[in-house]
């Protein structure tokens, strides 16, 4: 049984033309799955639909054997799904400690112990626990966003372009952190602008074009596919 299965997703924003026109994907336990595709393909929209931030007009979403198609974002968070948006993924006017605390809203009794475990995993956050989130560097902010997503101990982590705007060094550190989390058993579904790097660490990947699935395969295979490299990754 797949951990996450999205079938025939049709969705968009308001009255405009639907952006997703029947896209689907699945994530098995322990996998890293990356969605790639050209601008406007609907990659981020698909993640937002799965997270419950954008409603779907058609389709079905099953999380860990449970149909969560009609659940809202809060219901999906309760069901074990965590989403780190591309932008504004921390509460800028709150301290690092407050960000972690408020991210444990669903299980307040466990929040303190989980925050301590996160400080042990990411010492940079421990050192900055009293700093306002908006004063952190880009890389530190992404680590905080990642840590906030972990406060619910999710079954699957959704990441929307986590390395966007980061320096190459900070992006490498972030990818290392994602791999580290995955090795501890957490499934990851992400959209990433650095598609080659993301596919290299992915179990599988999906190519999305104009709101539909165009290809699927093992991550490293997709990264090496000359057609994909030529069309979407800017490589030869």
């Amino acid at each position, binding site marked *: 049984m797949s951990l996450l299965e999205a079938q025939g997703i049709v969705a968009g924003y308001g009255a405009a033309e639907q952006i997703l026109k029947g896209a689907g994907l699945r994530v098995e336990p322990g996998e890293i799955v990356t969605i790639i595709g050209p601008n406007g393909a609907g990659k981020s929209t698909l993640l937002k639909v799965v997270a419950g*931030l954008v409603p779907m007009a058609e389709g079905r979403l099953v999380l860990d054997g449970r149909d969560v198609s009609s659940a809202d*974002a809060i219901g999906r968070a309760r069901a074990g799904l965590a989403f780190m948006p591309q932008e504004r*993924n921390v509460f800028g*006017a709150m301290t690092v400690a407050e960000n972690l605390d*408020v991210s444990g*809203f669903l299980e307040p009794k466990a929040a303190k112990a989980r925050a301590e475990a996160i400080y042990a995993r990411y010492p940079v956050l421990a050192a900055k626990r009293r700093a306002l989130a908006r004063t952190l560097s880009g890389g530190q902010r992404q680590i905080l966003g990642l840590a906030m997503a972990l406060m619910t101990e999710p079954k699957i982590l959704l990441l929307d372009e986590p390395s966007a705007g980061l320096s190459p060094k900070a992006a490498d550190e972030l990818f290392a952190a994602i791999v580290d989390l995955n090795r501890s058993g957490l499934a990851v579904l992400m959209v990433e602008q650095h598609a080659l790097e993301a596919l290299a660490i992915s179990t599988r990947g999906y190519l999305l074009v104009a709101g539909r699935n165009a290809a699927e395969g093992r991550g490293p295979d997709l990264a090496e596919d000359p057609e994909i490299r030529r069309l979407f990754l800017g490589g030869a």
Partner: protein
Amino acid sequence: MMSAFAQAVLNGIMNGALLAVPAVGFTMIFAVLRYPNFAIAAYISTGALAGWVANTWLGVGALPALVVAFAAAGLVGVAVEEAALARLRPSGALTVAIASIAANLVVENMLRFGFGNDLRGYDLPLRPDFRIAGLRIGPQAVETFLLAAVVMAVLFLFLRFARLGRAMRAVADNPDLARLKGISPRRVAMVAVFLGAGLAGGGGVLLGLDTAIDPLTGYRVLLSVFAAAVLGGLGSIPGAVVGALSIGLAEEVAMLAIPATYRSAIGFAAILLILTFRPRGLLGERAV
């Protein structure tokens, strides 16, 4: 002249403390729901009259009257939000702001229907003013100032350390992200409206301790309250306190130079100046 100025400064601080409580209520609602709720004037009057009922009918002191006023105005605020304003939110902030003006008129007239237009005063013992270094200070004003300070301190602690308080700040900062963390913006909005309207009602009692009240008590201070919130930065709670103290001071000090009939011009001038030179207000970036 110097002592008149010092007296005006002292009065201004007292006046500012009075304005700060409803101004914080106003800005708290704005921070979470992102619209200016002008029905706050009616909530101030509701609180003032609810406190008056508790004080003169039930014989309770200022502090219990403050609690009664907080609860009454908070409930009226939630009822107005649920009955009228919440369903207009998808139409945008301007629509809700205009609707809040209409809601203000409705609640104000309901109060007028129930209590009439007579001026009323709280039943509290008259006490002589203190005189310190030539300055006159009323004991009631000092108590009112302290009550306002306690209310602000409790609110500050709630927003800093209470789980619900932090959730409110999270929704004010980023409602979508808050939802992803399992926080319901709708529920938090209701809490914010209850607290904001309740604070306005508490401010009504503080005004009632200082002066006579009627159903237009809130309307008379609305401009000053709005100016305080804008001056401090809409959505910023410390900003509302700073703004209220600034407006309170400016109103009292200006009376040394201009006739009292122009008092309301101070609020207009403050709004005009701040929007021209610093549109986000003095502390507009910090929600708490």
